[in-house]
Structure formats: structure tokens, C-alpha cells
């Protein structure tokens, strides 16, 4: 049969499989519209201010959230993109994180000096990149969607272009990000070569890698390792975490909160796809390095956080440590159970992390500072804020009954079942270490006298945002059964892969 021309092939694919990617299309098209016609015409016409863009952005994100939940399962685009429970679950996480980021960027919180349509459009573009990442089942789509996400984030990190540290953060992130993408791509090409240069599809790659001949084992090993390194850069796992504290510190704080959650959720989805599907047959190659990385991430993330003076940097290191815990789920031999545990952990982490950042943003906006010392006496100055922060921090430390404990409990339970007892012991001991630095903040808030100065009353928006998140964190565990029910839906459908694709002609 004659191969169809590129154009007709593209058209056929699009018309046939477009229903899988409606959420992404919605995000991209509305982002594009926002950038050009609407921002230059609609806004001047209605005399609205730029920060009003937050509201349509939120609406679009909510709409895409609804669409992505109801997207049918299936495999499309020549088996390069797949929609299943895993895709949908992690897409929900990414969109939720973006919604939180938009909520934190509101003008009343005062985290941004200027609001532009580009800011919101870039969030939309990056989110669509993340949504692609969650469903990508081919090394090529994975690489492209990572780039789509990362390029937007580089700009957003450097959004405070009048501040030196903002520019520095953007530059650092860009250079290191480009570097890591290069390594990832090189790893992909090595694997492509090792398996005979036929396929980049993860399912097929898995079969090919299982039977790869002995003389190519070095290629496979170095390829798998490079992919691992490239992805570890994206989730900021030790020793590839160097960029993260500086970037987190320099980025606008809502973007920092977003960086700690959304790209990590998407990258972990990619992690699960690649290591759960593509490299499953060669788990002996990457298991030991990943174990080392996970252990080092937990230890270094938590130990380095102790010395931090800035709240943003503290949360950055704590986010590194949390990624270390989540890598335990990637290690799981039962990839599905691992995905479920990571999903649950990420969902709960999303709430407590957003809450903690909301408090930081609020204080920054009121010019009360972001250093840990600036939190002194907050228990007296802002009782509600301080109590919420206490709850978020204890939850991050994994103290019951807050939801952070539940996430850790579920994740570590799985890891013990999979036989990673030593890593779990490290994880638990380092989480005891983490209690130390979280409690340092609590100490400042409750045991130290407040600094002099007038205290502005809290506006109702911040109060609503923070206390709602706080309530979720407090009572979330009581809804454990419901959470576990959702978690149970995070499963992938290998069986639905069409037979024709599975039996790709073997040259």
C-alpha cells in the first residue's frame, strides 16, 4: 500500500483523533486569542484592566478541567498519545495547579508588579504542554511536550524583569533546562539506535529492549541513564537540583508555587510512562541509580533546608525533598500502584504547598517580608494566617491528622510492600528532620515577639483562599475513602493498545 502523503496523513489523524486533545486545543487557542486580538482590541474597548485577564483564564482552565475528565480513553495519533486513567489523573493535577497559580496571582495579593495578557497566556500554553506530557506515550511526543512546557516556564520565571534575581533565575533555568533537554534527547537517540532505529513508541521499545543483543547493552545502559538524568533535571532530583533554589527564589512567588507542583506532576507522569512502560523490561539498569537518586534527594533536600533563611528557599528545598519521596513510587515494580501513590501524594501536596505559598505571598504583598525571621510573632499579628501556616507546615512534615501524613502513609506503605524498606527508613527519618525546619518557622510565629508596626486587616479574598485550603488540609484525611476511590481510577489501559500497533512490522 502506498504511504499516504504527509498532509493527508496529518489530516486523517487530526480528524480521527482530535477528541483526545480538546483540552489542549482549548488552552492553546484561547491563549493565542488572548495574546493578540483580544488584548489589543477587546480590553481597550471594554476599558477593563489587564489583571482582569485572570478571570477568563480561570474559566478556561476550569473548562479544560471538565473536558479532560470526560475525555474518552483510547490511543491516538499513530499510537503517540494516549488517554487513560493516568493521563486524566495527572492532567487534573496540572490544571488544578495552574488554577491555584492564577488564584495566587490575583492583584489583591500583590505578588506581581504588573499584569499582562502574556502572563496568563503563557500559563495556558505551559499547561497545555503539561497535558500533552501526561498523555505522551512516544519518546518524540514526550520530548516535544516537555519543550512546550519548559519554554513557557523560562519566560514566566523571568517575569519580574526589573529585578536582577528574576533575570538571573530565568537565565539559569533556561541554560540548565536546555542542557538537560539535550541530554534527554541524546539518551532518546541512543535508545533509538540500540533498538534498531525503528521505533520510539514506549510499548514497542519495551519489547525491543527486552531482547536487545548483548553488544548493544552499553548503548541501552547509557541511553536509559541519560533519559533518567534529563528527567531528574526536570523534577529537581539530587544531584540535578542545583538550579531549583535559585529559580524558586527569583521567580514571582505564584510561579514558584506553580513550579513546585505542576511541572513536577507532569514530569512524574512522564517518569511513570517511561519507566513504568518503556523501560520496564530493563528495570535492572535504572533501579539502582534511581534508588541512589531518591535517597540522596530526600537527604539533601531536607538537610539543606535547615540552614535556609528565606521562606521561599526553604519551601524550594522542601519541594526537592518531597520529590525524593515521590520517586519511591516510580521505583515501584507495580507501576500502576506506584502511579496511584504518586498521584495521591501530589494531589495532597498541591493543597498544602499552595496554602503555604499563599501565606508567603500574602505577607510579601503586605511588605512584611519573606525571610523566616519576618514571621516572628505572626501568631499575635495574624492569628488566622499563622494558624493556617502551622497546619500547612505540620502537614508538609507529615504529622497526623493532616493530609500530608495520609499521602506519606500511602506512599511509604507501597514502598515497603515493594521491598524498599531501607529507603523508607531514610524517608521517615528525613521527614523527622524536616519537622525541625518546619517547626523553626512555627517557633518564629508563635514563640517570638512580633515586630513593631501596624497590621493591616486581611482582605476577604485572601482569607477565603487561605482558610479554605487550610480546612481541606485539616479534614482531608477523614475523606480518605473518597480519595482512595479516585486514586483507584489512576490506571492505564495497556490492553486497549490496538493489536495492529503492537505487531509493528519487524525489520
Amino acid at each position, binding site marked *: 500500500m502506498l504511504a499516504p502523503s504527509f498532509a493527508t496523513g496529518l489530516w486523517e489523524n487530526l480528524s480521527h483523533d482530535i477528541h483526545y486533545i480538546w483540552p489542549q486545543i482549548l488552552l492553546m487557542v484561547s491563549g493565542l486569542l488572548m495574546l493578540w486580538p483580544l488584548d489589543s482590541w477587546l480590553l481597550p474597548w471594554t476599558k477593563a484592566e489587564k489583571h482582569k485577564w485572570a478571570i477568563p483564564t480561570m474559566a478556561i482552565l476550569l473548562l479544560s478541567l471538565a473536558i479532560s475528565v470526560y475525555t474518552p480513553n483510547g490511543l491516538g495519533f499513530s499510537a503517540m498519545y494516549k488517554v487513560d486513567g493516568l493521563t486524566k489523573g495527572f492532567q487534573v493535577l496540572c490544571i488544578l495547579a495552574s488554577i491555584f497559580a492564577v488564584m495566587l496571582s490575583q492583584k489583591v495579593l500583590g505578588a506581581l508588579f504588573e499584569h499582562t495578557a502574556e502572563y496568563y497566556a503563557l500559563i495556558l500554553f505551559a499547561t497545555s504542554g503539561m497535558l500533552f506530557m501526561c498523555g505522551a506515550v512516544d519518546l518524540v511526543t514526550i520530548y516535544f511536550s516537555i519543550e512546550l512546557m519548559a519554554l513557557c516556564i523560562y519566560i514566566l520565571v523571568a517575569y519580574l524583569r526589573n529585578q536582577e534575581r528574576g533575570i538571573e533565575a530565568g537565565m539559569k533555568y533556561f541554560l540548565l533546562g536546555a542542557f538537560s533537554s539535550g541530554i534527554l534527547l541524546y539518551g532518546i537517540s541512543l535508545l533509538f539506535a540500540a533498538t534498531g532505529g525503528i521505533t520510539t513508541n514506549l510499548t514497542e521499545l519495551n519489547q525491543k529492549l527486552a531482547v536487545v543483543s548483548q553488544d548493544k547493552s552499553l548503548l541501552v545502559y547509557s541511553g536509559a541513564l541519560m533519559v533518567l538524568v534529563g528527567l531528574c533535571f526536570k523534577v529537581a532530583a539530587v544531584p540535578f537540583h542545583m538550579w531549583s533554589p535559585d529559580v524558586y527564589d527569583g521567580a514571582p512567588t505564584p510561579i514558584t508555587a506553580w513550579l513546585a507542583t505542576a511541572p513536577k506532576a507532569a514530569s512524574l507522569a512522564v517518569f511513570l510512562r517511561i519507566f513504568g512502560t518503556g523501560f520496564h523490561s530493563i528495570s535492572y539498569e535504572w533501579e539502582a541509580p534511581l534508588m541512589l537518586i531518591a535517597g540522596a534527594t530526600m537527604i539533601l533536600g531536607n538537610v539543606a533546608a535547615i540552614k535556609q533563611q528565606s521562606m521561599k528557599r526553604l519551601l524550594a528545598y522542601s519541594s526537592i525533598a518531597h520529590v525524593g519521596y515521590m520517586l519511591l513510587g516510580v521505583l515501584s515494580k507495580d507501576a500502576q500502584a506506584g502511579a496511584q501513590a504518586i498521584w495521591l501524594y501530589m494531589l495532597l501536596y498541591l493543597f498544602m504547598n499552595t496554602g503555604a505559598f499563599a501565606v508567603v505571598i500574602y505577607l510579601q504583598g503586605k511588605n512584611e517580608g519573606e525571610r523566616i525571621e519576618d514571621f516572628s510573632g505572626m501568631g499575635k499579628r495574624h492569628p488566622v494566617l499563622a494558624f493556617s501556616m502551622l497546619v500547612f507546615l505540620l502537614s508538609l512534615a507529615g504529622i497526623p491528622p493532616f493530609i500530608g501524613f495520609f499521602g506519606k502513609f500511602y506512599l*511509604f506503605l507501597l514502598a515497603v*510492600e515493594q521491598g524498599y524498606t531501607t529507603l523508607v527508613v531514610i524517608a521517615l527519618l528525613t521527614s523527622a528532620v524536616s*519537622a*525541625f525546619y518546619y517547626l523553626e518557622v512555627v517557633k518564629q510565629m*508563635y514563640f517570638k515577639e512580633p515586630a513593631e508596626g501596624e497590621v493591616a486587616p486581611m482582605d476577604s479574598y485572601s482569607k477565603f483562599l487561605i482558610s479554605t485550603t487550610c480546612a481541606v488540609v485539616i479534614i482531608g484525611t477523614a475523606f480518605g475513602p473518597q480519595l482512595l476511590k479516585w486514586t483507584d481510577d489512576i490506571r492505564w489501559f495497556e490492553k486497549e493498545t490496538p493489536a495492529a500497533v503492537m505487531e509493528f512490522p519487524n525489520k
Partner: protein
Amino acid sequence: MSGTAQLMLLATFLPLLGGLALLFVPNEKREVFQKGSVAIMVVSFLLSVPLWFQYDRGSAAVQFAYSVSWMPSLGVKFSVGMDGISLLLWLLTTFTGPIAALCSWGNIEERWKEYYVWMLVLQTSLLGVFIAQDMLLFYIFWEVMLVPMYFLIGIWGGPQKLYAAIKLFLYTLSGSVLMMVAIFAIYFLQHKTNNTYDFSIESFQAMAPVIAQQTKAFQVLLAMAFFLAFAIKVPMFPFHTWLPDAHVQAPTAGSVILAGIMLKMGTYGFVRFLLPIVPDGTKMLMPWFLALAIIGVIYGALVAMVQKDMKKLVAYSSVSHLGLCMLGIFALNPWGLKGAMFQMLNHGISTPGLFLAVGIVYERRHTRMIADYGGLSKTMPIYATIFMLMTMSSIGLPLLNGFIGEATILMGAFQTWPWVAVLATSGIILGAAYMLWMFQRVMFGPISEVNTKMADLNMREIAYFTPLLIMAVWIGLYPKPFMDIMDKPVQKLVLQVQPDFYKAEALAAKQAEAAKAGMHGMEAGEAPEAKEHEASPAQHTAAEPGTATPAAHATPGGGH
């Protein structure tokens, strides 16, 4: 849900609900917080009292049980209930609550709202630990309690409060996270053996035979993980270093709750988890455990002897007394275990009493140094009398509560580990020495100018000492009800740890009878353990236990 279970849950969660209600009172209304918290604690205590009468002493089963499914896919249940051991400690907690609230009236001078709310939250989490029948639920209560305690010490404590608070938190946390791993390990072992996911304490205890068949290393690691979590809480030497700091820095009520209840959680953990779940692992490590216990007894006493600070002295005396409790537990026989449980109760009465007594002079003079006092009995006769009774109770004077516990523990320990018991008696002698010496230096001798102005106890202070004194005398004169309630649970525990224990005893009794028959009327000694004999169906022949009984189980379980 049965009425008694409702009562139990109500008494447990009432302090939490009351604390939440107090949140809505403005901070200025100091009296509302003071009286309100005492009222809530008293009501909680009154609600708890009927359970003492409702408890069926003839059964070792968990009573007042109530259970609802929480996370079925993981086997987690909200499951509560109590047996005799938990009931005793649970009642001790509800009993201590009003005292702790009442003694705070005088010494909490700022941030009343936070203080009383945290205290009420703490009370619920303490009570929850004793009623939890599910491992996860237990763990949640166990960890939650750290947060309010951290605040009580950190905000209202002494000069070194920040250090003491974080030390308490981190020590306890790092111990309990290791316990979590052990819990997970048993959970999956259970799934492997009978294909169920279940977090209930009962199912964990039922795993003991399976755990006994695992490798030695596995058992030892499990035992060590549990041991560490509980030994830090008890605290046993060398994990005790948080205790003097926490006690000295904590406000009086904090010390009362720490000494009265929180230390008991550790020993409770030993009898509820370590012994029944990993009996063989415990026996493998027994020499080490015993060594630590006995070092604790003697070291604690010696360090207490040289203290210049009254509160620190009482704190180190706790290390010594709890070491003795641990010795009783590690005797692994009914006398030792019962004595240890009983001594926990006694320690929960006399040590809070001593801390309260120290708190009273501290409120008046703002110093705890022994050297600053002297001759107080001249100006504060009532105080001196009460202090003396509490001291006597602590050192184990007959007719007061401490004596019964110490005697029973030593009796049990002597049968299993005679030499260790001999060493432990030295701790008791030292205990009498440091306590009486402190009493002498504070109460007698010349009185300084400042101290002549010190007022004697007021009605409120007498009010919170009275229940403690009544209990101390009551237990000292008539301990039977308190012993009886532990009868069946302790018997069950002994069977869990040493399945052959009562068989060996019955055999020994038979031998003794045979010997007596052969020797024509050799005189049988008085049997302190007659109750156990009636209790066990296997030994109806043992009506007259002979002199050979102790020898027969001198080395139960093959500890070495």
C-alpha cells in the same frame, strides 16, 4: 453503638469539643478559660467514672468496643475499646485532667486562650491513645499529642523552652517513624499469610506466631523498632535526655501531664505492642533491655541525688521509677507485669503531686533551687504535710500507694531475673535517700528572711491536692480493685508472651504436691499468686501452690 461506648467516646472527645468552643471566647476573659477548662475536664472525668463500674472484670476481651469502617481498601477502621490495662490508664488521664487545668490558674499569666485550648486538645489525644484499637488510629493520636505539648512548653515554658520543646518533639517523632516501618512490615506479612489487609491491633497481635517463624534478623529489627519508639517515650536510659529538659522548662501543668500520662504511653506501648506482637524478638534482645532498664533505675537515682533544682530532681526520679516499671514488664510474669502497670498508676499519682508541690513554691518565689529554701515547714505547715505524703508515696512507704507497686514488681522480677532484682532494690534505697534529703533541705533547717513571707496553700491548691492524696491513701490501703481489673488482661498477655507459662506453673504445683505427699506434710508457703491459679482453667489442682513454684519458672522463655 452501646451506651458505654458512647460514654467513652464522649469523655474522650469532650475536651476537644470544649476547646473548639473556647476558641470563640475573646482572649481577655481569663476567668472563662480557667473555669471553663476545669469544668470541661471535670465533666469528662465524671463521664468516665461509670465505665469503671461497667467494666466486666471476668473477661480479658476488649470492652466498650465500637468500630466503623474508615478506609476499607486499606483495612483501616475507626475502632475503639478498652481492656483493663487501657481502662486504668484512661481513667488516670481523665482524673489528671482537672488537676492540670486547675493548677494552671496561678502560673499562666498570658495568652490564656491558646493555653487552655491546647491543653484540651492534648487531653483528647492522650485519651485517644488508650482507646484506639487500630494501629493507624493509635499512631495518629500518638503523634498528634506532640503538637500541643510542643506549644505548651514552647510558649509558657521556662528560659530554655525553645530547646526543650523541639527536643521533645524530634526525639519522640524520630522514634515513632521507625515504629511506622515496623507496622508496615507486619501489615504486609499479614497480607502474605492470610491475604487480608487489616490494621486492627487484634489482628496484629494474632500475627505473633507467624512473626515467630520469620528469620531472627527480621524479628530483632521489628522488636528494635517498637522498642525504640516506646523507650524514647518512657524514657529509658540512654534515650531519656529529653525528659529533664522538657520537665524543667514546662509549666507545672505540662510537667504534670508529661509525668502523669505521657510517660505511661511508653510503658503502655510495651505491653500492648512489643510484648504481644514480637514476643520472641523481645526475648532475643532481653539482656540488652534488662541492662538498659537497670541502668535507668540506678543512674536515674544517682543523678537525681546530685540535682540542685527540685524539678530536675523529680524528673530524674521519674527515669529511675520508670526503669523499675520496665524491669517489671521484662519479668514477663504476672507479678512483674501487674506490678509494672500498677506502678504506672502510682507514678501517675505521686509524681504529678511532687511537680505540683514544686510548682507551688515556684509560683511564690520564682526559683526552684533547693538551696533557696529551707525551714518551709514553719511557715507552710499544710504544704509541708502534703509534700511529705507525696514524698512518702513516691519512695514507697507501706500504707501508701508506691509500696504495693514496688513490692509486686520486685517479686515478679526476682522470680525471673533474681540478680537484676537485687540491683533494682538499690535504686529504691537511693530513691528514699534523694527524696528525703530534698524534703529535709526544703522543709527543715533555718529559714531565710524571704521565705518567712511565703503564704501557705489556698483553697484552690488544696482542692487539687486532695484527690491525689485520697487516691494515694486509698490505693495504699486497699489496692485490690485496681489489681483485679488488670487480672484477666495481664493473664492474657502472659499467655501471649509465654504460652507455656501457666502449664509450667501447674506442673510445678503438681510436683510440689507430690513432694509434699512424699514428705508427709511439708508446710506450704503463703501463695501471693493464688488468684492466677483460680483464673487458669488448666490448674484446678493448684489450690495449694508449693514452695517449688518460683523455682519452676525461674527462667521462662529462655531469655538468653
